[in-house]
Every structure is written in C-alpha cells, then in structure tokens.
C-alpha cells in the first residue's frame, strides 16, 4: 500500500487562561503509519489530540485531511471525517449495553434495530476476541474489556485516522499484545494511527515515527530508527545528553552526631494509587528525591509515605521504631509534612488570609476548639512572611490575590511552622518564577543543614541535581534504580529512566 499524506496539522495554537497550551505545533500523519506522540504530562499531547477531535477549538492553525482543509468543531465532526478516538479514561456510557456503546451516535437511522445491532456487535466482539456479550451492560465488564469495546467501536467506524490516547494503561500484557496485533492489521489496511503512551517499550515495539512535544511546543518529528531511547528521553525532558550542569549547593550538609540515623524507613510500601511496592529510607539532614517522567509514580510514592492515598501494605519505621501511618493526620503527628503537587486542589484555601493559611496545619494538630490568640497567629505569620520573603500586602491579604510563587511559599510556611522532622515537597517550584525557585532550593538546603530530612520532587532534573544527594528513579510506577554520588548526572538519570537497551 502506498503511503500518502493523510493528515496535516500546521501551526496549531491553543490558549487557556494564562497558559499557552500549544504554540505553533505541526504534526503530520501518513496512511498506514503508526505515529507515536510523546511528551511529558503537560507537554500538550492531550490538547493537540483534543483539538484534532473537536473537543477544543483551536486558536490558530490549519488542519488538512487528505489535502483538504477541514474545520472540526465537535467530536461529531471528527467522527464524520473519519477520525476516531480511544481515550485513556473510558468515554463510554456505563449504563448502556456493550452493543449500544459501539453504535450510539453513529449512522443516520433514527430507529435502533436491536437485533441487527446486537448481531453485528457480537460478530465484531468475536472477531476481535473480546470477552463480552453485546447485550451485557457495559458497567458489568472489567475496565480492560471496556477499553477494548471502545477500540472495537473506533475500529468498526472504518476510520481513516485512529487516535489511541494512552489506551494501554489499563490493559495487561496479553491485552496489549492483542491491541498491537489489531493496530498492525489496521496499518495494513492503510489507517493512520496516532499512538499516545508513556510506555517507551511499546513505542519501540509498534511505532514507525515519533513526534515529541515539550511545554506546548514541537521538539521534532523522527523516524523511530533514528531516535534511540536515551535520546527520546532527552528530547522529552529538554536536556542534552552531555549537559552536566551538576552544581552542588554551597550550603554545608548536616553534621550532627545523629547524622546517620534513619528518620524514616519504609519497606514494601504500597498504596491504592497503582504503584508497585517500594522500599525507601531517608537519613537525618538528607535531601533525596524521586525522579522519573511525569506519571511514573513519583507523586504516588510520596503520597503513600504521607498516607494521602490509602496504604494497602508495607512496614514503616521512624527512628527505627515501627509506626502506623494510616492517614495524613497520623503522618503529621509523626512529624511528617507534605506539600502537595497541586496547590490549587490540595493546598491553599484561597479566600482565607495569609495568616489563616499559615496557621492552618498547626491549628489542626492543636485541635479546632483551642484556637490561637490573634497575637500568636500574627506572630507566627509575620515570622514566616519575613523568613520566606513572602511578598504580600499584609498578613490579612487573601491568599488568592498572591502570585503563584508566593502562594507556594505560604504553604511551605504552613508546614515549616509545624517544625517537621521530615518534609516532603512535591513539585514545589512548578509554575513559579526563577527567583522564587532559587529561594526555595536554597531554603531546602538550609533546612537540611539544620537537620531536617527532605524529599524533593521536581520535573526539572537540574533542580533535583542541585538539591538532592540521592535520587530514586522511577519508571512505569516502579522503582527502577537509585543514584547517588558520582552517578548523579543528567545522563545517568536519563539512561536509568529510559531503561532497556
């Protein structure tokens, strides 16, 4: 089959309030091609897909299908043009039957012929070897089967372009193999497939080409044979292999007599957030970190440590003594503090003042019926506003009127006020300006030199290298390595993340 240019997206731009989600992104797809779209979370993959499927309107750019310019305003438009999508999260209706989910929203007939629909659905299910019956209610199928049904729907629509947006995250190996077989069949038929996934192995197994996005911009389009794994990871992270910008801080490390004491130890810790059991420990005055691509499970690990997700198993010791941490409150009682990744959701209470936000955690620990006096609260707030250099009009200003960086500092102040022994910072520097970033990095090292143990997570590897003395590397929700000392380099991190080869 001759491979012709099927889809062409040129100069696609998309803005959300305050964010440029896509900037001048180009993407093209040939018929009979499996094309991987790679990038970290937030790189713009999903946005690009949603523009292509009409879920979002684009702010600029052209989409051409078979050489003709098309306007896609809704998922219906996309379907009509032969673009089918299977999303990561199941986008089917759980209350309808399997057959209905395969056929609803398609075709022109106003009347449903149940018998015909069930028969053809059963035929497709059988052909694709999907263990479901047409008349079964979708909710009674396992998630993997539901995903397969979504794929069956897309396949049956005789689409020209099939988009698979992380379809494999809920499938087991056999099911993934089945899916790959199907993808190859479709490829033979001349369908162009866009494959989005976090799993590098899978990309190298089925894809022909890779397009990499980063921060809403196009990094480049590559033939799979021209781009070894390590280079792919480097492209995704935006770092060159030989970029060895390892600048250890000038701050002294902690040197008390108890410097070797393990403050926190966990063995076989596992939570309900889908991570594999992991071991972890941190010494007094140590700064370590979890690294890996976004979605590799690093946040889930620290959430398990803090008890923010439901802990399903594993043993936890503090200072060598076994403790039980079932939830955030117990973690806090044990001297663990956690600054969550998404401050908008988990962190700040926007309408409360800076002062109230700062004393919040301490107040929780003290109990709500024993409030602090106003004077105490102001003293605490002023102390930390000064210490962290929080730029606010006064301690009474509502937090939501502060800049992102300063909001982050307020949350940091909240946890520092608790004088934790062990502080977990999950992406404390995301979305804040460079000056504040360096402030926070310095603060981390300072606190460590005073004896606090800190786990630091950041998407920016050089930031991690600058602050951490030991890095736990994660891939696909599993700990795959630990780096310290001379191994702490960009290239080692990348090759550990990439694995394989």
């Amino acid at each position, binding site marked *: 089959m001759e491979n012709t240019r099927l889809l062409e997206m040129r100069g696609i731009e998309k803005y959300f309030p305050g964010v440029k989600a896509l900037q001048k992104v180009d993407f093209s797809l040939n018929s009979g091609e499996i094309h991987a779209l790679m990038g970290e979370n937030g790189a713009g993959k999903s946005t690009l897909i949603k523009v292509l499927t009409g879920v979002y309107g684009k702010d600029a750019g052209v989409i051409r299908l078979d050489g003709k310019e098309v306007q896609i305003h809704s998922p219906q438009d996309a379907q009509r043009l032969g673009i089918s999508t299977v999303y990561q999260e199941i986008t089917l209706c759980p*209350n309808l039957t399997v057959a209905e989910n395969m056929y609803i929203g398609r075709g022109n007939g106003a009347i449903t012929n149940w018998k015909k629909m069930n028969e053809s659905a059963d035929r497709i299910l059988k052909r694709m070897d999907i263990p479901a019956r047409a008349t079964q209610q979708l909710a009674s199928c*396992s998630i993997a089967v539901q995903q397969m049904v979504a794929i069956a729907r897309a396949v049956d629509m005789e689409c020209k372009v099939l988009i698979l947006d992380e379809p494999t995250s809920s499938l087991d190996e056999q099911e993934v193999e089945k899916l790959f077989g199907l993808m190859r069949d479709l490829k033979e038929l001349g369908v162009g497939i866009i494959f989005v996934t976090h799993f590098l192995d899978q990309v190298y197994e089925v894809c022909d080409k890779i397009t990499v996005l980063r921060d809403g911009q196009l990094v480049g389009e590559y033939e799979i044979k021209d781009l070894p794994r390590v280079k792919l990871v480097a492209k995704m992270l935006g770092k060159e292999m030989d970029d060895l910008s390892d600048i250890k801080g000038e701050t002294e490390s902690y040197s008390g007599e108890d410097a070797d004491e393990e403050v926190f130890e966990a063995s076989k810790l596992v939570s309900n957030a889908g991570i594999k059991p992991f071991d972890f420990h941190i010494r007094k005055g140590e700064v370590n970190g979890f690294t890996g691509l976004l979605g590799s499970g690093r946040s889930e690990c620290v959430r398990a440590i803090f008890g923010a997700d439901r802990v399903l198993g594993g043993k936890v010791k503090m200072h060598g003594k076994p403790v039980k941490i079932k939830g955030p409150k117990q973690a806090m009682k044990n001297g663990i503090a956690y600054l969550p990744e998404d401050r908008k959701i988990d962190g700040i209470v926007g309408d409360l003042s800076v002062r109230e936000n700062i004393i919040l955690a301490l107040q929780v620990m003290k109990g709500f019926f024993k409030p602090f006096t106003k004077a105490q609260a102001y003293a605490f707030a002023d102390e930390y506003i000064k210490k962290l250099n929080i730029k606010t009009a006064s301690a009474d200003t509502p937090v939501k009127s502060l800049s992102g960086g300063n909001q982050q500092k307020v949350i940091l102040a909240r946890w520092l006020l608790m004088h934790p022994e062990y502080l977990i910072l999950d992406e404390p520097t995301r979305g804040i300006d460079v000056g504040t970033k360096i402030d926070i990095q310095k603060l981390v090292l300072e606190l460590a030199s005073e004896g606090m143990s800190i786990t630091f997570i950041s998407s920016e590897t050089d930031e991690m290298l600058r602050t951490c003395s030991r890095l736990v590397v994660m891939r696909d929700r599993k700990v795959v390595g630990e780096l310290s000392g001379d191994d702490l380099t960009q290239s080692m991190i990348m090759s550990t993340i990439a694995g394989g080869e």
Partner: protein
Amino acid sequence: MDKSKMKGGLFSKVSDTNLLFSITVTIFILMYASAVIFQGGGFRKPQTLFNILSSNAALIITALGLSIVMISGGIDISVGGVVALVTMSCAVYLDYCPGANIWVSMLIAVGIGLAFGIVQGFLVAYFDIQPFIVTLAGMFFARGMTTIVHTKPFNVENEAFRKLKDTRIVIPGAGSYNKHNIYQPAKIEIGVVVALVLVVVLFLVLRYTKLGRSFYAVGGNKQSALMLGINVRRTKFLSHVICGLLAGIAGYVYFLNVGSGSAAHATGMEMNAIASSIIGGTLLTGGVGNIVGTLFGVLSLCTIQNMVASAGLGDAWWTGITIAAMLCIFLLIQSIVIRQKKRALRV
C-alpha cells in the same frame, strides 16, 4: 473468555434499568394483591383500579415527562405550575371568549406546555444553568401567571367541554354487580386513554429511537456521550421540550377531570410525579429508568394512597407519611439490589 464467565449471580445479566423495573412491578403486584386480600371490598372490583387510573391520568403523564428529564440527568419541578396555568387558561378561554372551540383550547394547553419546555430547555441546555433553578423559576412564573389570567377558581360551563368531560369509555367484561345485583359496566375517562397511548409511544421512543437512546447516554455520562458523538445540548433541550409538552397535555387531562380552572390545582403534583418516577425505577442521578416502570410507579403511589384512605386514615398527613415511608423502602431496596449486583460483579 473464562475470566468473564458469569459469576455475577442472579442480577448480573440484567441491566440496571430492567432490574429496577422488575422490582417496581413485583412490589406493585404484591401490594395490590395484599390490598385485595386484606382490605377486600372495593379493591376486588376492577373499577377501583380504573378509578385510580382516571383520577391520576394527569399524574401519569407528568411523571412520564419527568422520567425522560431524569433519565437525561435533569429535573423539572415546574410541571405542577404548568398544569394549573393550563387549567386556568383553558377555562378562561372556554367561558369568556365568544365562539370558543374545544379544539383550540387543546392547542392552548399544548402551546403553553411547549413554551415552558422550550424556554426552560434552552436555558438549561445552551446556557448551562442548573435545571433545578430554571424550573424553580418556571414553577413560580406559572403559578403567578395563573392568578394573573384569572384570580378566582371557577367551573367551566362550556357545553362542548362538559360533554367531552363526561364522556366515559366502557371496558367490556370488566364490570361488576352492585349490592342490588345490577350490572355496572367498568368505565374510564378519556384521559386514561391519552395517558396509556403516551406510555406506549414514549416507551417505543425511549427504546428504539436514536433520540431515546441519547437520553440514556447523556444521563449515564455526559462527557462520554459527547465523545461518542451525541449532541448533548440538543438532547438535554429536547428532554425538557418533551417534558413541557407532556405537562401541557397533562394540564388538559387534569382540566377534563376536574372541569375547573384554579391556581390551587395540581399543588405539589411535581413532587408526586418525581416520587412516582423514582418508585418506578428511575434513578435521580440519570441514565436509568423505564417508561412502563413509571406507570407502575404512579399506580403504586396511588394504590397506597387508596389503601390508607380505605383503612380509615383519610387525612392528608397519613397519605404523606405513607408515601414517605414507601419512597424510603423503594430507594432502600433499589440501592441494596444495585449494590449486591456490583459486589457480585467485582468477585
């Protein structure tokens, strides 16, 4: 194939909609049977059931509309107000406009209902306003308008209308003998026929048309429905239009039953309709429900009212309390069965 072998037990093969429907019908039959056995008398005559139907035809029709809106994930609490407005508007037209024609009065009823449905549906679907709020406003507006149309309640004198109102349809073979051993044929009002025809039509619409299935899809998961290529806004809009249209028809059926216009008519009818729909197996969260179930929901609700009344507890509060208890019991059974089903599937 082995993995998905049906371990789910009794309920796993049945969809939620069919499951709740079976529960409703079973409970209704048990209830009516116990009424026949323990209270005897009137309940043994088919005419009792026909009377229940005749006096509640309007409720059946509004409950059908509410089922459709609720299956689509919405709610409409304006229907009682619309019914009152229809009775008053039609009454004023028939008695105060010279040369009034009953066919035109029917058009007025349908027109009022459609107007409410269209405006409310438009606000809900295209402006993303909560259906509860929109139809709450609709309810106040309808009740207010009723009083503006005419302040005092009055009986309609129009000849043609009185004739239509008194028309009864005889059900052959269902009659019974009274204590003087005189045969009395079983009769129903025209409204019942209208209601039953609508039950059949809407059942077919919901089961077999693209629009009908879209209601379920949108109620099941709005986002998914959109991704599956369903026009979610239009579907929501149409659910309200149909509900409004049915409220208009119900208004006329109610009007035929009572023969008067009044701002106090159909007070709280929307709540009875919601209750009936829920008893009939519609989930307030959307996506699950059955039109025939709704019919049985109304019948269950009205039967229990009659049972309470014939047990000598005719006061309004007793009916209220029994309806409350019944709703609780139904919802409890529904949630237990659905939970059992989910648990069985998880194994």
